[in-house]
């Protein structure tokens, strides 16, 4: 057959595309399960890093089961709507998940955060002490912020100052400010923004505020309970 004829070219291209598609579909199907498992373990280690535990990849799952004592879904009124830990773990940003961790004998609440940076999604987890007000630690990740600038939100240098900051002021949930050097702080607690990563820093600030506000009722319930205990 003439290799330069149109028929040959068409047949060649079609067969090639079908074969390649079949091969890719097979590889994807065969590895799917293992990949999903990896995504899960990655999520576990991200949740753990929000309480300052950074296990090696192979130990993340065991450590997660040890540290995270409960996971559940709440609604905007702060009521627990599902205490199925698996469901809470798999929840996306439309649901309000809460993870409870026990670190050095005290209880921490871990809240997932979802937001947008400059180039794409950013997300993270923030852990609160049992007063549901003081931040114990925070961790952030991103899809594709600029390396060296916005991507710095994923470093401990950016995350460490969150510890000890309070999200409530006079009983109102104000969240935190992420401030550029030289900016005048308002009544909120604040951490330093990243030089050259302004838009990503703003994204972090917005993300904290949007996500935490949805949990306001839940936090207040905890604080009310704490009050009762301390008055007794």
């Amino acid at each position: 057959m003439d290799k330069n004829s149109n028929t040959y070219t068409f047949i060649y291209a079609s067969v090639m595309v079908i074969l390649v598609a079949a091969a890719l579909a097979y590889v994807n199907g065969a590895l799917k399960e293992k990949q999903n498992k990896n995504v899960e373990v990655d999520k576990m280690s991200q949740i753990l890093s929000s309480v300052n535990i950074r296990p090696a990849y192979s130990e993340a799952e065991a450590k997660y089961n040890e540290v995270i004592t409960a996971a559940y879904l709440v609604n905007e009124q702060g009521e627990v709507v599902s205490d199925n830990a698996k469901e809470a773990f798999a929840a996306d940003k439309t649901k309000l998940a809460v993870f409870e961790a026990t670190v050095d004998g005290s209880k921490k609440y871990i809240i997932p955060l979802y937001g947008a940076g400059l180039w794409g999604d950013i997300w993270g987890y923030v852990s609160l002490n049992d007063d549901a007000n003081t931040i114990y630690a925070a961790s952030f990740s991103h899809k594709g912020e600029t390396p060296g600038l916005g991507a710095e939100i994923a470093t401990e240098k950016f995350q460490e100052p969150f510890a000890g900051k309070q999200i409530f002021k006079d009983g109102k949930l104000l969240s935190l400010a992420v401030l550029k050097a030289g900016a005048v702080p308002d009544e909120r607690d604040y951490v330093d923004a990243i030089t050259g990563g302004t838009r990503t820093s703003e994204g972090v600030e917005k993300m904290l505020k949007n996500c935490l506000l949805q949990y306001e009722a839940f936090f207040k319930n905890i604080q009310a309970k704490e009050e009762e205990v301390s008055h007794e």
Partner: protein
Amino acid sequence: MNKERKEVLLSPLDKKNPVLVLVLGICSSLAVTAQIKPALVMGISVTVVVAFSNVIISLLRNTIPNRIRIIVQLVVVAALVIIVEQILKAYSYEVWGQLSVYIGLIITNCILMGRLEAFALGNGPWDSFLDGIGNGLGYTIILVIIAFVRELFGSGSLLGFQIIPQSFYDAGYVNNGLMIMPPMALIVVGCIIWVHRSMHKDLQEK
């Protein structure tokens, strides 16, 4: 292995180095060389993809219609890259996370198309395989040298282990931030090419 085959395998490491002499694959050598580990993984991935796409194209070389040969090459390369990515994602998730967008960049690595066009279309599968391995390794070596310089002076570590002792930092030594930035990779490549050319006078243009 006879002498010609040895030449096919070894010459890309030095005198026909794809990065230093052909100046191919520069984009990725800027992107992934801030640290040695991603550079190494990128090098190995490229080596695997060049070698196998070379073999496949070489096997198909007598059947490929001339008019769509570039498209055929691209499809083969893209398919292999996706398979490499899927395997990394399943078995080495952390590395996959680090390389993320750069894996896709393997497809656009000029070394691949360069070798397919220049070698695989005109040579047998075994020779093509050696040529792919040789060029992949030649690329990897340069990447690792650049990454060595950048990681040592930019982060004070090698392969993630701290090399420059803490006492230096206490005495006022500071990591060179410019080393982390992509332009520095270009300057390092330039310096390596300079040294390489002065060692091989016959490569110097008049």
